[in-house]
């Protein structure tokens, strides 16, 4: 149950929207001043990839909520299988995602 009754969910969504929008707006302001062929642009591109990688570790290794109830070995094992199948299939995203997700569901069901 929410600690923000009676308008908890509405305020939570509003807070989430503003928290996301703020970063996007800040990005728009910065982007206006950046040369797409310059070093600052490259640095921001690299930071984006690094943050996505950091987010990935959070999703796979340190998830919150229901995913955290699934063992780390299942999460990492399914992900590793997906990567292996992805490369074995000639970098086919669809096959990699389907195999990893299917293996994850099967492991959750049977282990």
């Amino acid at each position: 149950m929410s600690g923000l009754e009676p308008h908890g969910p509405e305020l939570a969504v509003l807070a989430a929207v503003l928290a996301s929008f703020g970063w996007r707006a800040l990005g728009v302001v910065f982007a206006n001043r950046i040369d797409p062929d310059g070093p600052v642009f490259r640095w921001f591109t690299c930071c984006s990839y690094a943050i996505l990688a950091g987010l990935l570790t959070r999703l796979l290794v340190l998830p919150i909520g229901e995913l955290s109830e699934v063992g780390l070995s299942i999460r990492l094992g399914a992900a590793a299988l997906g990567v292996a199948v992805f490369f074995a299939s000639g970098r086919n995203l669809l096959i990699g995602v389907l195999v990893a997700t299917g293996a994850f569901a099967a492991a959750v069901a049977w282990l």
Partner: protein
Amino acid sequence: MTQATLLHGAKRGALDALGIPLIVLLGGMTGYGALAHDSGIGLGLATLATVLVWGLPGQIAMLELENAGADLLAITIAVGMANMRFFPMSVALLPTFGRHAGGIIGRMFQSQIMSASSWAFIMRPTAPVEARARVGYHVAFAAICLTLAVIGTTAGYYGAASLPRPLALALLFVNACFLLLLLVDIRQRGALVAIVTGIAVGLPANLYLPDFGLIVTGVIGGTVGFLAWTPAKTGPSA
């Protein structure tokens, strides 16, 4: 630079979005919709969050924290940190549109519809290079993704009770798996170094600095990747 260029880009964006992102988005947002249902939040609000927050990790963090009775500041910080990637991603994306994204409103629109998937796809070497075609590509790709996300949220919301637990959990897992494969598919040296460094730094940073771990990861990983960048390959071809 013609209207045909824009439409050609849009066609390619639509075709790309109707591939693997279709499955991943429907899956991931179905998982989110089911979680929203179980959290007691209304479908309208859950859908509004999908469209306006437009970042699954942040949306899930919002639901989990709201459900746990967290205060607004905690929710704002958690969602803000989960979605702070939109700042550097916007900075890295918008200049590649040149003047074709329009004025400030047009750029805000492009930034608002941007997701990790649309960003990762348009940064691939196979995406259009010409600025106007890139605008068409991104708008079409994102519009289809948003539509699929709303459908997935609604389907998950109404189907929550009938979802077996392994499937419900798999739907939450599919997004992480998709992101993983998008990242291992990167071939530009600097970006690859940033990703590897991001994973190495991300583990301890997220563990010991849960509120600011992603910022630390981004700055350290991004800087190391920047230093390793191969000068011959820049910009959208990352």
